[in-house]
């Protein structure tokens, strides 16, 4: 009798284990994919960053020499500073336009859907198409500038992407034209979560449109607002497509960012070890951004 109960307990424990393990079978494919494509190559990158390697010969371990070179590489610092400018650009202009668009949309009912679709269309268009479109529009002899010059408004027929003074801002403008409509939709969704009676009170107390925006809307959507700012900072680190397609970092590194610098270093100059060290610093920058966010949150910031 006792033996029988024991064996039944034994079976049910094994059964229970099998049940729990079988749960993980469902997760195994997605985890395996991410390990093979993202996690393991990312860790390998840390090792490669400590080697001298062209991608063809045997990697030669050189310790931290690549990072030493990086600290003394003016192009690296220039690229990094462009990433900072890029981030600041995206944290201000598209965010302002997104907030404005969403606030104005939240105040109307008619045609709201039409506007939403219109704002969102550039966001679903491919980078290869958007860059082609703006390369035509901003062409010094065929584009808007040339057209304005013909109407007698001089000074805009410049080579936006070919001049070292305007290349970076020109590319950032094109990329943010594609991006800001996305923010409108995100902020609009958040604004609908704000208590309507807060607006009623504000109106009764005679608050102007701007005051309502400043004191009701912005505090009301603060979690979403802060989250989008965090995402913009994280997304700005690997910025690549629009820059690569419009200027490839040129002229003379005037619009070079870390993403394009790394890409050309590994696939055109075959300095794979050095490129990996740039990639490692990009990951560290992202980690710092996330860490600051987490620390601020732990300290009680309502974000």
């Amino acid at each position, binding site marked *: 009798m006792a033996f029988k109960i024991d064996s039944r307990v034994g079976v049910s424990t094994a059964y229970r284990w099998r049940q729990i393990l079988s*749960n993980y079978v*469902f*997760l195994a*494919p*997605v985890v395996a*994919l*991410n390990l093979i*494509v*993202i*996690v393991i*190559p*990312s860790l*390998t990158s840390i090792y*490669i960053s400590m080697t001298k390697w062209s991608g063809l010969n045997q990697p030669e371990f050189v310790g931290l020499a690549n990072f030493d070179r990086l600290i003394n590489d003016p192009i690296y610092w220039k690229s990094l500073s462009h990433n900072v400018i890029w981030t600041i650009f995206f944290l201000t202009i598209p965010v302002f*336009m997104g907030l404005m*668009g969403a606030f*104005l*949309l939240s*105040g*109307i009912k008619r*045609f709201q859907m039409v506007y*939403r679709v*219109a*704002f*969102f*269309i550039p966001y*679903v*268009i*491919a*980078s*290869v*198409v958007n860059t*082609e*479109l*703006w390369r*035509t*529009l901003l*062409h010094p002899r065929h584009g*808007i500038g*040339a057209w304005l010059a013909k109407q007698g408004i001089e000074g805009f027929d410049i080579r936006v992407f070919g001049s070292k003074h305007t290349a970076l801002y020109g590319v950032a403008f094109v990329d943010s034209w594609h991006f800001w*409509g*996305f923010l409108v*939709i995100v902020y609009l*969704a958040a604004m609908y979560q704000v208590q309507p009676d807060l607006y009623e009170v504000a*109106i009764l107390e005679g608050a102007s449109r701007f005051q309502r925006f400043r004191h009701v809307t912005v505090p009301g959507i603060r979690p*979403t607002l802060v989250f*989008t700012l965090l995402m913009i900072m*994280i997304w700005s*680190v690997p910025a690549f497509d629009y820059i*690569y397609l419009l200027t490839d970092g040129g002229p003379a590194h005037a619009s070079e960012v870390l*993403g394009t610098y790394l*890409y050309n270093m*590994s*696939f055109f100059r075959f300095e794979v070890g050095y490129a*990996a060290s740039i*990639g*490692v610093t990009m*990951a560290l920058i*992202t980690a710092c951004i*996330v860490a600051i966010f987490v620390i601020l949150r732990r300290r009680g910031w309502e974000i």
Partner: protein
Amino acid sequence: MNRLRSGRTETTAFNHVILFLLAAFALGPVLVLFLNSVKTSEQIAQNPFSIPTEPRWDNYTVAYERGNYANTVKNSAILTGGTVIGVLIVGGMGGYALAHLEIRGANVIAFYFLVGTAIPIQLYVVPLFFLWKNFGLLNTHLGLIIIYCATSSPFATYLIRSYMVALPKEFIEAAKIDGASKFQVMTQVILPLSWPGFLTTGLIVGLGVWNEFLIAVTFMHQPDLKPVATSLRAFQERFTRDWGLTNAASVIMLLPVLILFLLMQRRFIEGLTQGGMKM
């Protein structure tokens, strides 16, 4: 009260003016792209905003042929279709596990999905290139599909999970009492109920693959296997002075996306804003 009401009508008029300007800013350039796609370079140079008097539809047939679109669209369809199917299977299983099965360390996996999407692609693209070279996956559609599946799977899993969590638990319990296995619960109860989640996820992932550039340009050098995005890039570089032609080629790539978006814009907007913002 009267003053309040009149104040409100003023408000919406102001809203509409600014919103119209913003919409013109968003759509104007796209409209110009369409107009210029049926002009010659000379006509574009004369006035990029003019309405074409004699539309040159030839631009489209020439772009379609010289851009080898019959082939590149097929390639993009294989990549998009393959990735969407792969991601929905993998993400569906993962989403089901996270939503309805007992998983110890589910927090760790959710945390990875958050951090995993923040990892800059440049950190792993170079080692992955050499790994794929060794596996013989470079310049193959399968190689690209695997990468796309991996990079979009955290988002897909998360989005599908959010749809599955919302399903009533009673259905699942009832099926379990009837003796259904976990696999049967997934395929016969969860799947039929959460198909809107799969549709939304599939649309977003498909859009991403169709438009994707960096991975395609890095991992696919075989000209006849290239997707639309990178062959359009090559086309633009080849016909760099023929604006009408390159604009027409761009419209060909844009058109399927635009039509699908206009037909299903609610799903696109819902999926893109949720996936991007609720991770």
